[in-house]
């Protein structure tokens, strides 16, 4: 009797755990994205004072922490330079979004709610991922907060109208990235058989869909599959990739996963197949795989003196993934400063100032001027293609 009860308890535990894993890995964040009630904080005036608070949403921990910490370092680098050169100061209210972990979406929503209920926060830099942007929209919009991402590239998050006037980004959308990628694959690499593996996140699926459609339109044979961000064993999916495949496209967000995929390709005798990553894989871990590696990345001016100073500050580490987050922080900080010109500001005033952002080419770090169109996208939005040469990405297109 007791044994049977134990079996039933074990079965229920296992069933619950199974649902937890499956649901966490594949759930869409619609529920989380539902708008929360207006808090009234939208128009509430806050005394600006000498120190202004900016919410910083990034994956401080979790599987994407390697790129998240890089974004945080860039944001902190902006804070350091700003505080050293201005009479007013900025401080961050940090919220960890745990991007890529099983409960990442829920954590980002919790973080957004915490920022929304903190009256001193006037604007937000982040979050990093497109899925998180979708998930946190309800909470941030409900609290009247404008938010500027330095890495969320999914095309629809600005064009679907859900967060217009609230959300802005300092990276070009995937529609721009997909054109650069598909163009380079067909016209420069002259590849005719491509396999795309997405990572089941909104960013990845959206980008993969666009590249797939564009490649098909150009007569390329395209296979498609997906893996979970939690996955580390790619051998089963690598076996499935047809032997005559010339290039595998990985629009992923986690460089260590890209590295693991490339290593497992080699160990299964597929080391000669070209690998093309997206902006999320623009990292030495991925470029270090070899000369068969390509990537696409945001516009950036690598010769900018701030890039060099950042590199010096971080012991020679020049990871550039977080550089647009520097610009995102710059945008939020600038909007708060302008809104605070008379000593007080509301979140609505900050949002209005975000729309009016104008950063010159010289001041933007991206190598192009930053201003936003009515959707919240940058007016100028080119994407570059890079090739790994001796383990370092070099721009080729």
């Amino acid at each position: 009797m007791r044994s049977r009860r134990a079996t039933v308890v074990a079965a229920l535990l296992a069933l619950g755990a199974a649902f937890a894993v499956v649901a966490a890995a594949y759930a869409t964040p619609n529920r989380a994205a539902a708008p929360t009630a207006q808090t009234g904080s939208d128009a509430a005036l806050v005394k600006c004072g000498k120190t202004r608070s900016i919410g910083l949403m990034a994956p401080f921990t979790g599987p994407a922490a390697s790129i998240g910490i890089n974004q945080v370092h860039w944001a902190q680098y902006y804070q350091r330079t700003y505080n050293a050169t201005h009479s007013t100061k900025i401080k961050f209210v940090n919220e960890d979004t745990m991007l890529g972990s099983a409960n990442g979406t829920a954590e980002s929503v919790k973080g957004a709610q915490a920022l929304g209920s903190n009256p001193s926060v006037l604007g937000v830099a982040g979050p990093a991922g497109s899925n998180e942007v979708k998930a946190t929209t309800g909470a941030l919009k409900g609290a009247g907060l404008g938010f500027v991402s330095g890495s969320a590239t999914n095309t629809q998050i600005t064009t679907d109208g859900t967060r217009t006037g609230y959300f802005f980004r300092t990276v070009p959308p995937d529609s721009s990235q997909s054109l650069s990628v598909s163009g380079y694959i067909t016209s420069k690499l002259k590849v005719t058989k491509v396999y795309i593996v997405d990572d089941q996140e909104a960013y990845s699926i959206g980008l993969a869909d666009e590249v797939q459609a564009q490649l098909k339109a150009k007569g390329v044979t395209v296979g498609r599959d997906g893996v979970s961000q939690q996955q580390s064993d790619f051998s089963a999916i690598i076996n499935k990739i047809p032997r005559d495949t010339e290039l595998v496209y990985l629009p992923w967000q986690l460089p260590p996963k890209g590295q693991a995929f490339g290593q497992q390709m080699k160990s299964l005798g597929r080391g000669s197949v070209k690998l093309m990553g997206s902006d999320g894989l623009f990292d030495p871990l991925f470029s270090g795989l070899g000369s068969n590696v390509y990537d696409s990345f945001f516009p950036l001016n690598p010769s900018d003196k701030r890039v060099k100073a950042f590199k010096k500050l971080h012991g020679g580490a020049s990871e550039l993934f977080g550089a647009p987050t520097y610009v995102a922080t710059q945008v939020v900080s600038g909007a708060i400063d302008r809104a605070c010109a008379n000593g007080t500001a509301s979140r609505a005033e900050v949002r209005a100032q975000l729309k009016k952002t104008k950063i010159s080419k010289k001041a933007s770090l991206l190598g192009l001027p930053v201003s936003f169109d009515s959707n919240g996208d940058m007016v100028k939005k080119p994407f570059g293609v890079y090739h790994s040469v001796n383990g370092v990405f070099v721009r080729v297109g």
Partner: protein
Amino acid sequence: MRGPHSFVRSYFPVNWSLFFGELVSGLTLGSIYALIALGYTMVYGILKLLNFAHGDVYMVGAFIGFFVLQWLGGPLTTAVTGWLAIAIMFVVAMVGCGALGVGIEIFAYRPLRNAPRIAPLISALGVSIFLQNSALLLWGPQFRSYDTFDLIGVKSYHIGPNFFISNIQIFTIAASIALMAALTWLVARTRTGKAMRATSFDREAAEMMGIRVDRVISFTFFVGSALAAAGGVMFGIVFGQIFSLMGFTAGLKGFTAAVVGGIGSIPGAMLGGFLIGLTEAFATGYLPGGSTYANLYVFALLIAMFLVRPSGLLGSPVIQKV
């Protein structure tokens, strides 16, 4: 005249390259699950406790292996040969995690041995969260790479048309089978194994027969945790990367393997591990949306097993006097 091969090929158009590829992938992954499942099943067999901290012991094992490799000079400049470095990583991780397992048993489970069964279960969940967060605090959230390519130089062997198997896959499968064989010998042929079986059968009677039950239970935790550590190091070697939250899903799969095989049964745990690994690999290779829903297929297998054979493949229903 058509040979038997061409006959088979024309009537059963199987993609053998894919089939063998998935078979090897499944066996490799299954080896790791089997090693984790053994710890679950041994502890359950002896204490009737679901040790949910076991997956995190596996994670700690992977990290110990990683730090031993760094201590030896890193993958590029190892002080000893690559394979010797791997042997040292295994030994240190297994001993370290064995000691950790004994510590967990003494501090978290032994005081609750006579408490209602839910109490040690909650304690196990607490230990799991404690280990996860300690790892996060001590080693950070980032991935760590074993860089096996630099350490031993991965070689692919070309067997038949378009079928490859790497030296690392061969090593993983062979090492797991060797460890399982050693465990089977330990349990079936040694005095300690006999004491373990006696304790598992009836703890009080075993105690009355002079068996030091506490020592046997500690030894069981030591062996189970050491096997999990071996699984963790193997994971790092085969799949390259480890991170502080890797124990949760792996622990869940190991638990599933133990249940599918028949919790409490050592051969069942091994069989369950391989079955789960093969299910994942073949689901990825053959079923629609397979890689996306591989976990769904794995846990569907678990549910089906409960419906059809609640005691698992090799578990036997226990009749209890009421």
